[in-house]
């Protein structure tokens, strides 16, 4: 049986619905020894800011039950160096390249970044990271406020014709409300979820295990939370959802499609098994074969209630 794994995210056509999540795949090069990168549906870069960012002091990560905390602090070389040093490799892979962007001091930076990237033809889409919990000095995240979310998506929408993905935070009371704001403002798709705020303590030192004290929790520990958010949002919006949060194998990937995700992203699992993404792509084909599903689209939101 011929199985169609292709999906559409905005204007973007993916040959399969498996992507790799921002911040967990470096700039692609780090994984070239382990997998054939062109097998992926798309690749999302580590978040880029206008200016270079040093990030937080170590320890930046710590292991937690079925997951990990990170407080990298959006370390990145800044847009200029990214374009010069990192983008050439990404663009040669031959799959859609999605650039994740974030602002530091002022949301206006999103607009400048989007304008600049809009002119780069090898970039297929933009992901607005309005949900990173690791930028100090921010009292709240843009994605914790529907109005702020609406405004930023609307302003970026005006300056880019590229597919626009908005990445949302799970650290909210009602994620559907934020998702609807992003949709109304013209986002082509939503990525959910970013990490959950968390902390861990060394009881002997009585100090936080992370230098930044708090960080973002990822891994299978957050999967049920992520899944429920995908499910909630799926029923409230029409644009596609890229689901992520603790996907480590084919069965966890399938859960997200059934809950309503059009595509999925592999995040933390890349750190443990760099082959996770390609193993899931083969797993999808096998599952479809076994269940006589000729198109992945038939699986999306197929939850029986």
């Amino acid at each position, binding site marked *: 049986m011929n199985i169609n794994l292709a999906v559409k995210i905005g204007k973007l056509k993916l040959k399969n619905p498996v992507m790799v999540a921002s*911040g*967990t*795949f*470096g700039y692609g090069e*780090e*994984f070239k*020894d*382990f997998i054939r990168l062109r097998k992926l549906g798309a690749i999302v870069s*580590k978040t880029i800011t206008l200016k270079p960012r*040093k*990030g937080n*002091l*170590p*320890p*930046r*990560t*710590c*292991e*937690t*039950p*079925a*997951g*990990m905390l*990170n407080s*990298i602090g959006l*370390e990145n070389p800044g847009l200029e160096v990214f374009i010069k040093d990192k983008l050439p490799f990404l663009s040669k892979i031959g799959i859609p390249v999605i650039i994740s962007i974030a602002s530091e001091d002022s949301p206006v930076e999103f607009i400048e970044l989007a304008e600049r990237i809009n002119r780069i033809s090898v970039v297929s889409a933009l992901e607005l990271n309005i949900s990173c919990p690791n930028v100090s000095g921010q009292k709240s995240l843009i994605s914790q406020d529907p109005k702020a979310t609406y405004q930023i998506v609307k302003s970026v929408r005006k300056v880019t014709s590229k597919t626009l993905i908005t990445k949302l935070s799970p650290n909210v009371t009602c994620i559907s409300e934020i998702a609807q704001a992003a949709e109304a403002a013209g986002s082509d798709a939503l990525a959910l979820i970013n990490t959950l705020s968390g902390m861990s303590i060394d009881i002997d030192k009585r100090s936080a295990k992370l230098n930044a004290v708090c960080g973002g929790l990822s*891994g*299978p520990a957050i999967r049920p939370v992520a899944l429920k958010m995908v499910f909630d949002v799926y029923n409230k919006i029409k644009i596609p959802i890229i689901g992520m949060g603790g996907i480590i194998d084919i069965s966890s990937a399938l859960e997200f499609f059934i809950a309503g995700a059009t595509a999925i992203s592999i995040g933390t699992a*890349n*750190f*443990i*098994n*760099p*082959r996770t993404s390609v193993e899931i792509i083969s797993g999808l084909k096998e599952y479809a074969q076994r269940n006589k599903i000729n198109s992945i689209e038939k699986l999306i939101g197929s939850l029986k209630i």
Partner: protein
Amino acid sequence: MVQINSRIINNKRFKGNYWHCIFEAPLIAKRAIPGQFIDIKLSRNLEPFLRRPFSIHNISGNKVEILYEILGIGTKILSAGKKGEYLDIIGPLGNGFTYQNKAKLPEQKTIIVAGGIGAAPLLYLSRKIKAENKIVLIGARTKEQVLCEKEFKGSGCSVKIATDDGSAGFKGRVSGLLKLVLKREGSKPAAIYACGPKPMLKAVAEIAGDKNIPAQVSMEEHMSCGIGACLGCVVKTKKGLERVCKEGPVFDAQYLIW
């Protein structure tokens, strides 16, 4: 670097709380240089969640050896690994030591400083350095914890020991022993190589800096991926924060900001 399923050939208690494990890993053995490490997935379930990095202790033919101390759940699980079992290993990873591999003049001394389990990567290095005059200083808390004295001697090194409690050799820190050795030896050594706890490495870096002796140290930091992707394991350097797993684990001692 490669990701392989590697067979345990032997996994035995080495001494006290220290264990020695040998894997069959031809692709890693062929490429590994001293100071590099391997990253092991220690369980098929979620506990422990992340891989654990281990420095390469020795390479013999197609076998890779590690020496480890049981400190937490990961190393505890590893110690239960039986001969014939397979583990998912990624390696060789990181930048190793740069060293002279052509025969040197006898007066060019090389000093290796090993603190505690820091001895692990230095044995392979000591075997690879083709110098006649190699001195290894082993530091430990007590006599019982002195590691690899015999093995270092077997690789042609002269060995001196420092213990915190004075139960063997010099009483005090191994950095104190290094100062003493440098004073007594007169001529300046060609290089110092060190691995051990951070305060020890800092002391070695200061001593080497004062005397203008080139020194390389192997660093440690919490690692999540081991392959340069997560940016978790950074240390402060003169050029900013750099990854222990990629730019390191071996750094020039004077390049680091202590």
